[in-house]
């Protein structure tokens, strides 16, 4: 999270992460959130506010109340 703190103005904001409130430092990007959660960039796919965000486009700062979803591979039929 150190990178996040360096990019921020010091405040925090709340996003919805997989359906639960999650506080991040203001200015945190989606890529930084993925890293802070312990995921390699290629290990998850991401969506913000119902729209797919490709791996190469996770550099935008998250906004208050953004709905963030992370998806991982799983068995399936």
């Amino acid at each position, binding site marked *: 999270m150190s990178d996040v703190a360096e990019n921020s103005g010091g405040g925090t904001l709340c996003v919805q*992460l*997989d*359906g*639960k409130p999650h506080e991040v430092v203001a200015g945190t990007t989606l890529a930084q959130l993925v890293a802070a*959660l312990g995921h390699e960039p290629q290990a*998850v*796919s*991401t*969506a913000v506010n*119902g*729209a*797919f965000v*490709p*791996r190469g486009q996770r550099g935008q700062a998250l906004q208050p109340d953004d709905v963030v*979803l*992370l*998806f*991982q*591979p*799983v*068995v*399936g*039929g």
Partner: protein
Amino acid sequence: MGEQGKVLTGGIDAWQVEGVSLASRFILGTAGYPSPQVLADAIRASGTQLVTVGLRRQLAAAGDNGFMDIIRAAMAEQGARLLPNTAGCTTAREAVQLAHMARELYDTSWLKLEVVGDEYTLQPDPLELVTAARQLVRDGFTVFPYCTDDLVTCQRLLDAGCAVLMPWGAPIGSGQGLINPFALRLLRQRLPDALLVVDAGIGAPSDAARALEMGYDAVLLNSAVSQSPDPVRMAGAFKAAVAAGRGAYVAGVMAKQDFAVATTPVTGNPLLLGETP
């Protein structure tokens, strides 16, 4: 695809999906197995070259206990491909977004498109399905839609550019087999150039054999193997049934008749009872 009666060269009877040759006509699902090792052994026993996988929200479930590593290892060993699905989607928009995530995660443009319209039967929503298929084909996906056996919906999905159609045999996981063989036969008859796969509802290997005998190009099943007390042996049984059904279709099944037709040639047999010395 109108191959009935064709001569197979060297026993190879592959089918082609957009230029990719698949020797196995058995697509296997990967969910619900008792352990990763049983899944790996079932994949090997099935001989499949295409297995379905899914996506899940990160916090919605616990870890996968190594299932995905096992799948990837088995795929590498057999030179097989992954077919991600959009299970759980109820709208075209959701399905399109999930499809893009699946393509990024699994590095494949092949997609089993699922858009459910009824939570009780898990019946596909034909309108949302066609809408999603149109968009995904435009986005460069090779779309395998899970659909009902409705002829007109299937035609619309082909018009949208779907590579393969996957009508249900019966509701997902029900194991009821082919509950509407008339509709499935009609689809095969009316769409002779389409790649058709019976997906869902298959319970016994005989169901799979029947689908292939009808001229379906492949079958997709999961629960029939994973819910067997011996999934590995069942995967092998399905492999044999698929081969038998396909072989029967290519050879040509005899026409049914209403009355008996003598099999043994008896004309001129000197020992036939009733003849007097």
